[in-house]
């Protein structure tokens, strides 16, 4: 049971971590599909 729960926690940690990494690395749709000539924010 403990192992199962720790795996579920790991899923959450990996999900949040990967999202942070990809966003910071410029992999958001906004970063990938717009250039300096396009103003979104």
């Amino acid at each position: 049971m403990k192992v199962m729960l720790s795996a579920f926690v790991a899923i959450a940690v990996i999900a949040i971590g990967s999202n942070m990494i990809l966003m910071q690395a410029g992999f958001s749709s906004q970063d990938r599909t717009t250039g300096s000539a396009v103003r979104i924010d």
Partner: protein
Amino acid sequence: MLRAILALLLTLTFLSSASAQSEGMAQPDRSATGGAQTLEDIMARQRGEKIDDSFRRGDTGADAAAALVGQLGTRGGASDPELWRALRFGSADIRTQYGGPAAGVLIQDGGMRWLEFRNGPLKTYGAYLLGITLVLLALFYFIRGKIRIDGEKTGRTIERFKSFERFGHWLLAGSFIILGITGLIVLFGRKVLIPLFGHEAFSPIAIGSKWVHNNVSWAFIIALVMIFAMWVVHNLPHKSDLKWLAQGGGIFSKGKHPPAKKFNAGQKLIFWSVIVLGGSIAASGLSLMFPFDLPMFAVTFEKLNALGLPQLLGLGELRTTLAPHEEMQYAQAWHAIVSFVLIAIVFAHIYIGSVGMEGAYDAMGSGQVEEQWAREHHSLWVEEVKAKEGGVQKDATPAE
């Protein structure tokens, strides 16, 4: 002199295009429309028949334009219909602000076929597959009942899976269930959930599902690699698998227990399904998550064509020039089809590992299984474990 050469070139260009047109007209007679599509062409297209559109596809005025649109040439080499045909068949020279490879495609008619497939057969047959699998499992439960431990329980346990093995399993299982549910929400949202909850309630569910689906995928991929590395050795074919399969694993009749090693043939089939189908889902998923960056299908179709598989199936050569959107559409369709199949397989796996068999859950719960259960379902593995234990105990006996 220059003007004379240009005139000659133009004449030759028109002549060659005229002869090309007359060659294209060899099939139906399109003289009434001056070579443009006829009523019969339009009706055939509306009936959904496959038509040879080569007479239109190339008729984009490119030849005429080339002669006129030089560095100092005049504009207007191509007429509006010719320009629209170039847009329609993806041969127009589109220049846009930066926006990824898809931005240069203004008309992509393959998208309609994909949308119809996604909203029609994909959802219908996918739902049937999952529904029928659940009904069959329920029927099996009511007819066969829970598979009990036949012999008398010993009260002793054997360690079946170490904690890191169970961690890998639950990382894969947890992420797969989350991905399955969120994937189904995204696919069936418009058809099932919006009519139930309305647009406003569905919106946050859809946004949340997308976020979760995209980001939980990494846990699935990591777990897939873990599972492969940990268990591939135990899942190679063995001669006992044939006997196990011939007896249907003994699950259809009481008191029948074909011998098996650590994993029986049924578990091996599950393992390889998860590895192969899960790997394919992961690959198409990555292609979808990084749109247009990781196209897979044109390359795959080329390889399949070279092998001659599509030709054998009567599909002819598969197209190997795909619009960026088409790559994504094939990836989505493949991702969903393979996922439906794997979900159905995993339904059966979850059934037999929980309500379907007494003592099976312990293997992944505590990691310790009842010895009698192990003897009935994995007799060869128990012998291996006992032989090892015997060896260890012998070595551990102090010399007196």
